[in-house]
């Protein structure tokens, strides 16, 4: 009789003990989330801004850097020589064979054509639009430099070709192409 009551007691205590511990642990785990998530981009940062740019004033061989979502965007009016070099580079020679063009499927190949395609599939190979952030550790590469007539990142020595594709150095990926589309023959909207 006594033993029975004792046992009943013990299992009741065990239950209370485990239940309290479990509620405490799960509750704490849930309460941590707001403290972590508050660091993620907030609503004002997420409110996606878009930027319009008129390509017409850009001379051949001229490039500009504009700001979109706090990031530098390179817009370059390429010379025929640059375009030709980029086109005749075999895909097998590329370190990163993927287009990295946010307007295309994620597995699109890094052909020169795929590097200058907008969201509607329009191709204007004269104008190359890309996010000017080195895919290594985020420096802004310098234009018309490097071993491939494209961009050179001085921070740790990455060379990009005239289509913004990584050719040499520690950077793992081609420069990203932001989402953009032509609204007329010479005006694009980024974002």
């Amino acid at each position, binding site marked *: 009789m006594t033993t029975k009551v004792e046992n009943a007691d013990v299992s009741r205590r065990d239950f209370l003990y485990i239940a309290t511990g479990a509620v405490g642990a799960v509750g704490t785990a849930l309460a941590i989330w707001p403290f*972590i998530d508050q*660091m*993620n*981009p*907030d609503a004002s*940062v997420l409110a996606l801004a878009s930027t319009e740019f008129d390509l017409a004033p850009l001379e051949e061989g001229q490039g500009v*850097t504009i*700001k979109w*979502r*706090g*990031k*530098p965007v390179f817009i370059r009016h390429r010379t025929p020589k640059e375009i030709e070099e980029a086109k005749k580079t075999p895909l097998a020679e590329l370190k990163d064979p993927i287009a990295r063009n946010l307007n295309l499927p994620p597995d699109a190949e890094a052909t020169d054509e795929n590097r200058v395609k907008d969201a509607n599939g329009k191709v204007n190979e004269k104008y190359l639009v890309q996010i*000017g952030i080195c895919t*290594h*550790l*985020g*420096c*802004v*590469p310098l234009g018309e430099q490097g071993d491939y007539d494209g961009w050179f*990142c*001085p*921070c*740790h*020595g990455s060379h990009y070709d005239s289509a913004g594709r990584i050719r040499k*150095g*520690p*950077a*793992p990926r081609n420069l990203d192409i932001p989402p953009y589309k032509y609204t007329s023959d010479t005006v694009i909207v980024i974002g």
Partner: protein
Amino acid sequence: MSGHSTYEFKNPIARWVDERLPILSVVRGQLVDFPTPRNLNYWWTFGGILATMLVIQILTGIVLVMHFTPHTSMAFDSVEHIMRDVNWGWLLRWMHANGASFFFIAVYIHIFRGLYYGSYKAPREILWMIGVIIFIAMMATAFMGYVLPWGQMSYWGAVVITNLFSAIPVVGDQIVQWLWGGFSVANPTLQRFFSLHYLLPFVLAALVFLHVWALHVTGNNNPDGIEVKSEQDTLPFHPYYTMKDLFAILVFLMVYAAFVFYSPWYLGHSINFAPANPLSTPAHIVPEWYFLPFYAMLRAIPDKLGGVIVMFSSLIILFFLPWLDTSKVKSLKYRPLARQFFWLLVIVCLVLGIAGAQPAQGAWLLVARLATAWYFIHFLVILPLLGFIEKPKPIPASISEAVLGKAKA
């Protein structure tokens, strides 16, 4: 070795307090009577120097915050305001900026002291590992502090270092956005760095407390690497080591003051006098001198993830040092071969520092690669092997024998 004081306080008020909260007998036991090896040399004063620098950083930091504005539109100007308008602002800012450098000078000497005299070996493994955590926390603090004045080097340093995390497979980009609070280093980043830069030094203070606690359980190591055997081997901490430490602290502070007053910008980079510009990276970005060896390792590897792994491993490896070194002999005074490899390691680390300041190409890149390789070979191959190969010199029976000679001891 516990050093617990049996001191009876004569003063009735002191006795009354101590019976209720034994804080006075703890101070007496740990800071006054504490039995300390009699043979400690000046390399043992850097612990006290480090504590002093932490206090200086906290005091100057707290008053700088009274005038600093953590917002991208005003941070740079508010630091200039500190330099030009605030009473003694220039002094406080240069004390803080150079204080960080001197903090690192002291910590590097302190760490290499530990390497030379085998202070990481049993029974001091935990003491050593807390030290490594302190070192990493110091680096995080200094990195985030350097971002606050929002100059060109501040900004691009923040970009490059936070981007290290983008090397993590799959979730890397997510983590970087989380660190930034946006799609680039921007105001949310500056504000959180400010919050953490204020917090971390106090975490450091708590870690230092644990470090000293562990020290007072095992007692000090010493230049002969022999454990204390009898009272003959020790001296009370006060006045012998309080005075020795104080003397060293004063000399160290004089060198520090020479920099603060006569060339406060010598250890920094002039490009940080230009405000941050997210659209243009300076041609040659380099971290502060105390990060250069690690930066050289990062750049030595021609692969993004590989470089990041190697750089962090160079720190992580220090946690395993107590088990990588297989020799039972602590002090290199009695290890002729290990001593030569120690100095080689010192040179390799200095070379890494120099290489980290050069553009990453040509001969310097090769030098950085060789030095990086040697750093790891030293810890992973040389140290484990030496314990078996090397024949140590005869070790004195006790500290007092080492100090006084066999006859007298």
